[in-house]
């Protein structure tokens, strides 16, 4: 595996499977009364969050702590770090403090890439969501969740619905799921599909009903409030009618199909409350799996430089 996790495209099929299999082993720790392994004792993980994201930050924090790493949370929101100069200075500060891994969430696409390739830090960089680019650990936890319910993803049909244009979740999932052999269909109004999407390894559709007929997974994306007033679609109600997973559409899903959402949800907008709370919704489980997947990512990135024998040993959970 590479030294950093910046994009789902960094992962070969073998890399992805290694992370997912490792996460499966680590997930058992999550279900134990004492949820802790000594694996990363003495190592430091910095959560560098330039954007608010309580869910993702807590998930990474829990993952690092369960591996016994020291965690420093750096929330840049509200301080005067909107200028890029500060990204560099912040990075140099973290480096000086001896960070072994930096988990970064940033509003600017490519900021984690910049951090990893600029020479400002030597530590591993994990992209925890950058602008409208990618969110690879979200894709990993989604794939992990799908595998728990559906087994091998080869040939499985996954339908991702919503604001693909601005969604880092959709980008990362499209790449990772394709790597894992799944057939991905992105469904959105034409205004919310990026130009050039024909080059992606996915199918696209404007018609949700048609796409749902044979799907194994349906993943609903959050529609951000700021899209409402920018003419991407005429109104929230029309969006909901055409692209929402309501009770009627839910009833027509194949029986084994699962429903996913990266959260936070707009109930009544892209997903109805009944669907969100149904037995086939795995939305809460996604959160649990997120911790296990992030443990696997931190473990594999941070122990990569150690000798193989000790890591093997430490991983025997």
């Amino acid at each position: 595996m590479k030294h950093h996790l910046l994009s789902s495209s960094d992962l070969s099929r073998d890399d992805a499977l290694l992370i997912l299999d490792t996460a499966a082993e680590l997930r058992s720790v999550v279900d134990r009364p004492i949820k802790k392994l000594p694996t990363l004792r003495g190592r430091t993980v910095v959560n560098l969050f330039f954007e608010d994201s309580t869910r993702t930050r807590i998930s990474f924090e829990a993952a690092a702590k369960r591996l016994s790493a020291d965690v420093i949370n750096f929330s840049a929101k509200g301080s005067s770090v909107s200028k890029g100069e500060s990204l560099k200075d912040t990075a140099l500060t973290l480096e000086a403090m001896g960070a072994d891994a930096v988990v970064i969430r940033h509003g600017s696409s490519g900021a984690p890439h910049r951090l990893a390739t600029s020479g400002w830090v030597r530590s591993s960089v994990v992209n925890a969501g950058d602008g409208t680019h990618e969110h690879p650990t979200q894709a990993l936890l989604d794939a992990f969740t799908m595998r728990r319910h559906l087994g091998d993803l080869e040939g499985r049909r996954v339908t991702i619905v919503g604001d693909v244009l601005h969604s880092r979740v959709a980008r990362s999932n499209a790449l990772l799921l394709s790597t894992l052999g799944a057939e991905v269909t992105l469904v959105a109004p034409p205004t919310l599909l990026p130009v050039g999407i024909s080059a992606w390894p996915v199918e696209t559709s404007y018609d949700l009903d048609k796409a749902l007929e044979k799907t194994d997974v349906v993943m609903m994306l959050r529609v951000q409030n700021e899209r409402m007033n920018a003419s991407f679609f005429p109104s929230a109600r029309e969006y909901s009618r055409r692209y929402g997973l309501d009770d009627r559409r839910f009833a027509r899903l194949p029986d084994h199909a699962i429903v996913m959402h990266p959260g936070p949800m707009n109930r009544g907008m892209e997903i109805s409350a009944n669907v969100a709370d149904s037995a086939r919704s795995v939305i809460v489980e996604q959160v649990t799996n997120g911790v296990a997947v992030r443990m696997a990512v931190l473990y594999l990135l941070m122990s990569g430089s150690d000798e193989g024998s000790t890591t093997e040993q430490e991983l025997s959970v």
Partner: protein
Amino acid sequence: MTSYLLRGVSVMGAAPSDLLLHEGRIAEAADAPSHVVTVDVAGLVALPGLVDLHTHLREPGREDAETVDTGSRAAAMGGFTAVHAMANTDPVADTAGVVEQVWHLGQAAGYCDVRPVGAVTVGLRGQQLAELGAMADSDARVRVFSDDGICVSDAVLMRRALEYVKAFDGVIAQHSQEPRLTEGAQMNEGTMSGILGMRGWPAVAEEAIIARDCLLAGHVGSRLHICHVSTAGSVELVRWAKSKGWNVTAEVTPHHLLLTDELAATYDPIYKVNPPLRTADDVEALRAGLADGTIDCVATDHAPHPTEDKECEWGAAAMGMLGLETALSVVQHTMVETGLLDWAGVADRMSVRPARIGRVDSHGRPLQLGAPAHVTLVDTSTSRVVDRLQTESLSRNTPFDGMELPGSVVATFLAGRPTVLDGKLQ
């Protein structure tokens, strides 16, 4: 004043001859005075001094990025003898006072003729015409007007500006960018922007304004110059406008002749520029347009930025790249070595036509007896690896760092006086 006899020089690629620079003009070699300095320049190509229609010298206001002095040093090193200083300074060059200040600073520096560009609208705000006539009548004798960096998007204001400058033979140099289509835009809209998750700057935002402005220029019978054409569609539109007989000219930057939007995958904002780097198909169309004369000239859009404005994440970075010291090498690489232009063609696109568009009378003249001795000597046989630290500019934001490019400017003469000799600034 020292006279120089350039022995064995190849004027615009022609057979070797001798060129005498005497009393600021090109004179008969046989009439060389006894104290003449003879320079053996066998094998070098002589071009009329290069003229840049599009340079950001940043003074007044951003003297941390560039000054008129440092920018004109860089210009001389690049073989330029005249540059047009864009108006987006602070304060904006929208009054006779500011353009005269810039003009005087250029005279004081003495490395090239600095021709200030006047703003079209007050403060570049796109609401009210600046005093174009006052700038035209000032010591700076402004003929090129531009809100470069910002598009004159209001159709009525653009029409009025085009009409108004006819009174003093001015030209409106438009930065063609439909503002609503490019809000928050970071890079060319296409396959790469979709993959990289960056807000796209679609070709149509440039082309829609070019189409409109060509129609306006045709309608009012005025002169339109289109800054930094960057798309294949724009080349087609300019070709169409010229076929109508309208007085439309266009420029292309060296970076748009060479670099593509795939470089954005590095997320290194050294490649962030406005208009953005486009696709390989666009690059090909731009080269073809420059070769057939649809695009009149190469203009650098030399845009210095201090380190901290580029040493950051893409979204926060400033747009623009250096160009003066690499322009001729990029043109040799993309146009001469590909067989698209010969050296006479380079002289036409980098000196003759830009001088004519800017109404810089003493520049862009054939290297013939009696012409002002603005001469650039190029060693076309060498190559070099561009080093961002080796520059006369105050800034270091060249996208060509580490690239091997052909050719080097050996000497630049401004009215017979060397500003660069033996590749060194004088």
